[in-house]
Structures are given as structure tokens and as C-alpha cells.
């Protein structure tokens, strides 16, 4: 899966998590853009993505998640790595 495909697959996860079918993720989407994306939701998103893609994030990787593009890039890299 490339970055764009991961982003597309992430979209329903975000919609379910924040219960908002209008969410349209872009690589630039950050926590500021989505209502309810607090630190608690952040952990849940990571766990949901781990489940969906069957990957595991390293502790150090959690420090540097700035936007959704970054998130997708990391997942894509893990899937193809």
C-alpha cells in the first residue's frame, strides 16, 4: 500500500472514531482540524490503526506524529518494509 492508499484506508477509521462521516483526510490534516482529537483519542487512533493494518508502532515513532500524512507514510513504510 502506498501512502495515498493508506490515507484512503485511514479515512473510515477516523470517521468511526470521531463519529463524523464528513471527515475527508488530507496529508495535512492535524489534530486541530478535527473536533474531539485530543490526547485520549490520539492513543485510540494509533491502536485502531495498529489493528487495521496489523502493524505496531515503536515508542519513538509516537513522538513524531505531526499530521495524517506523516501517519500514513509511517504505516506505508511498515507495510512495505
Amino acid at each position, binding site marked *: 500500500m502506498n501512502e495515498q492508499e493508506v490515507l484512503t484506508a485511514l479515512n473510515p*477509521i477516523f470517521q*468511526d*472514531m470521531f*463519529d463524523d462521516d464528513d471527515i475527508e483526510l488530507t496529508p495535512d490534516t492535524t489534530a486541530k482540524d478535527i473536533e474531539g482529537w485530543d*490526547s*485520549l483519542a490520539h*492513543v*485510540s487512533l494509533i*491502536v*485502531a490503526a495498529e*489493528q487495521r493494518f496489523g502493524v505496531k*508502532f*515503536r*515508542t519513538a515513532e*509516537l513522538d513524531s506524529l505531526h499530521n495524517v500524512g506523516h501517519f500514513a507514510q509511517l504505516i506505508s513504510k511498515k507495510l512495505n518494509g
Partner: protein
Amino acid sequence: MDQLFWLPNHADLGAAIGEARQETDPAKCLDTFAQLAGYRRDFTLTNRLDRTAGKLLADLVAKGACKTAGLTPLRVAILSSHTIDHLVPAFRVAGLHRRLALSVYVAPYGMYRQSLLMDDPEMAGFAPQLVVLALDARDAPLQLPLESSEEDVTAAVQARVEELRQLWSAAKTRYAAQMVQQTLVPLDPPVFGSFEALVPAAPYALTERLNTAIREAARRDGVLLLDLAWQAAQGFYGKGLGDPVRWHQAKQLVSPNLAPLYGDQLARVAAAAAGLSRKCLVLDLDNTLWGGVIGDDGVEGIHLGQGTPTGEAFLAFQHYAALLAKRGIILAVCSKNDMAVAEAAFEHPEMVLKRADIAAFVANWEDKAGNLRRIASMLDIGLDSLVFVDDNPAERDIVRRELPEVGVPELSEDVSDYPACLAAAGYFETISFTSDDAARGRSYALNAERKAALTQATDIEGYLRGLEMILTTTLVGPAELPRTTQLINKTNQFNLTTRRYSEAEVERLAEDPGALALAVRLRDKFGDNGLISVVLARSDSSLETDELLIDSWLMSCRVLGRQVEQAVLEVVAAWATEAGWSALVGEYRPTARNGMVAEHYPRLGFANRQAPEGAESDATFWRYDLNAKPTVTHFIEIEKHE
């Protein structure tokens, strides 16, 4: 393994949640949500369920309309030494599935001592009925050098448990709340390997000792456990408990994806405390209690007993059911069979369960939903007290659809897994175990004999006289407290006001010299029925000063129709007269379940009384003049123990 593996799968739960949200009537909407909560669900779907259901529940509680929606409100404060907020939605959803309307207060992270030992206006305003102390093994570490002696470790463990006991005691005195203590999950990797537990101050050994001491103290102090350490040891949480990444990232003990499991574990303790546990295990026969079909294979042909793996597996399941019966779960049979053929199977030499263990035995060719209704009425219990175990997925599905109140666990296709499936579902969680529980199975069997005696007796008076009943009344003391509280919290039908009280609240009332907390036992020529009725009476500012309010009056349905209530009234009236009261005032608060006592007070000769100010609008009030008391007839000898 799915975390809620005893729950059935839904074809499209996400869509069903969306559809349920379209419903505009909040009670109907919550009803649907309560059913959807009974399907296997991950944490995202669970949170989605809670997003709407949580709001509706909060509205319902604020309006005081839980009762009409068939829900029991319960306020739970969670005090924690780790992050717990992400588990609250799953707790609420699992509660709703058990017909609880949970209000949850989460104290600020790590502030549990302050919330209990100091004045905490927010906590006090919330007035918790249940306080959950969710601690972890990393909290308040005992600062002991690894080489500490056994004695030093024992002293440190005792000191820590004494501190916890002070917190428990504060929850009781400050809030009259029932305490639930979470045991400590060992989190840290071993320092010594297998030698770990042999070093008294090694982390794992310390946690083990603390848990042992906590469990002992909890038993003494009437504190309930959320035994997470034991759950963890059983492997239910896999790596989802104490995942170091989640801990370093967010101080979460339980990973978000295991919230549904944790929520369910906690909700069953809460439901048990609110009297919503199930009481009766209904068993299918063919391929559930034995392998094969008794009608086709005959007693000799069925698989049961030592010698083959299948035969032993069915034996093991019967052993488990028999153990449940020994702790007070009523057993029933619901089978598509001819009655005579089904009963004959119990003559099989290796049957663990005996025909006499089965309190209600229904075998015919009618549909199982109808038969389950019959079983509930034979035993005088609600459908929501039943758990139905059947190997046939189609039967399970039909019963779930026809009777959503009945608990129907999904079973593995392998009978060897049946005991674990049934146990994991947690239908029979309890808050106490008394000798009355142990005797209950026998008591239901005796009831069947009494019913037989009734059909033989030509008149009801002769029948009642012939029972040679002796009623014993006791003012509630420490010995009666657990069973009294249990009865208060689980009696739904013969219950005039359905007020639920914690052990601490009952104790408080029992110690009030102006109030009456009466425990009633009944025995007859067939045996002892145990503690079967409770009356709580007290003064009330909304009544006249010489009127005694009967706050609660409830009775086990096992002794219905035997004029026990007449005899109890005689005792209560005598006590009240002696204490200087002029009248008793009875209150009836209707619920979905207590229609049978709507006419209780007029039947006993009480006169209608105007409702006092502040009473619930649908409650009725009744007055019994102690100076001109009508005669009461019954055929029960009364013994008083003060």
C-alpha cells in the same frame, strides 16, 4: 480469540447503530442500544454506541425516568492510579446491556486519596453508590531493598493494606458507598526469573503478597473485588494489560482495544451490586449435557462418562453445572424430547446431574421460547434471570430474537470449551455467598414437593396448616447483613418500593434505634427456606410524627401464597406499638416487575392514605391504624429473636 467471545456476532453492527439512532423515542432507542450492546464489538463500535446511548442515559437519569425505561440507575465513582477515561464508554455500554443506567464520575488521575480522605465537594455532589478503586502495581511502590527480610516485607504489605482499609472505610462513612477494589496486575518483568517469588521483596513476590492481603481484607470488610490480576492470569487480556508502550505514552493500564472486555468485567460487578445478576441456568439436553440423541440412541447409546474424550468432556460440563447449583444457581431443563425419554436419561449411571437437581424440567416438542417462558413462571422468576445453554446455534438465535431478556451465550463447537464459555460470560456474578445460597437448589426441589402436596390437599387452609410453618424474625445484625442486603438488591417482584441499598446503608439503618430493620426466616416440615423477607421501617419528615414509614418490604417468591406477609405484619405492628407509634404507613412504587404487590397493603387491611409531599407521582400510600388494627389470619407460628 475475540475479547467478548461469548456474545454473538452481528452481521453489520455499525449499520445497526446508525439505524438505531434514527429512532426518536429515547426509551425505544435505548432498548435497541441495550440489545446491540449484547453483540461482539470492538472498541470503536463500542464508543460509537456510547456516543448516543451515553447522552440518552444522562438525560434519562436527569429526568428521573429510568424506571419507566426499565433501567436501574447507579452512580459509580472510579478513583484510579492510572488513566481510565478511555474505559468509561465501554463500562457504560456493558452496563446498559445489563439494564443499568450508569452515571460515572472519574476522579482526577492519581487523586484517589484526596477524593476519599478530604472533603471533595464534586464527589459529595455526585453521591456515589459504588466506588471503584482502580490501582496498579506501580502505584505507591513499597520502598523496600531487595534483600529485605520476610518480616519487613510482611510489615510493609500490612501497612499498605491498612492504608487501603482506611480508604475503604472512608468511602463507607463519607458516602455510604459500596467499595470495589481492583487487584494489582503484576506488570514488571522478573528480576530473578523463576527464583522471583522466593525473594520476598522482589517486585512480583510483593505484588502477589499485596493481592493476597487485599483479598483477605476485602472479605473481612465487605469490599467487592474487580480481580484483574486473576483475569490477567487467565489470559483474557493477552498483551493488552500493561502494554509498556501504552503505559509510557498515556499511563494506560488497559489498552484501548480491550476496553470492551474491561468494561464488561466492571459492569458485571456493578450489575451484581444493583441486584441484576441472573439466577437460573437452563440447559438443553442432547449434545449439551451428553453426546448423541437420547430418543434415538437410548440411555446406553449416549456419550457420557469416563473412557472416551467426548464422554469425559460432557461429564466435565455437568460437573461445572453441578458446582453452579451448589453455589445457589437454580438449574432447569428445556429440551425437545419426550418427557419420559428425557427423564430416563437421568438414570444413566454416570450422570453427574440428578433429576432432583433440576428445579424445572420441560421436555416437549414446542418452541423453546415458549418453554423458557414456562420455566420462568414455574420458578416465579423473571425471564431476565435466565441463562440458556444450547449447542444448537439455530435454537440460540431464535431464543435471542424472541426473548432478548434471556442470556444466551455463544458456545464453541467443542464441548470441552463449554464450561469456560459459560464462565467467561459472567452471568452469575455475585456480591455475597451465604449458607442460604448453598441450600437454594435443595429449597427449589422442596418447593416442587410442596406444590405436589398442594394438589393433594383438598383445601388451602389444610395445606397451609399441614406445612407446619415457623417464622423467625430477627433485628438485622452483622450475621444477617450480607443476605439481607442481597435480598434487598435482587428482589424484583414481591418488592413494594424496589429501593436498593448497599450493605453500609442497611447497617446504618439497623443501628438507628428509632428505625426497624427486620430479617425474616421461614422453615416448615420440608426444610428451612432461609432468610426470605426483609422489612425496613423508619420515621419520615413528610409524614405525621406518630406515623412509621415502611420504607421497604420485600419477600422471596419462593414462599408466595403462604400468608408470610400476614405474619410479618403482625410482628411489625407489635414492634411499632411497643415503640410508641400510632400508625404504619405503607408505600407502593410500581415498576415493570412488581405488579403482584399492587394490592398488598389493601389486602392486609391498610386504608388508602393521601400521598405525602415530595412522593413520586405514581406511588400509592396506605395507612394501618395500630390502635384499631384489623385481625390478621395466618397459620404460621412466630418466633422472635431480638
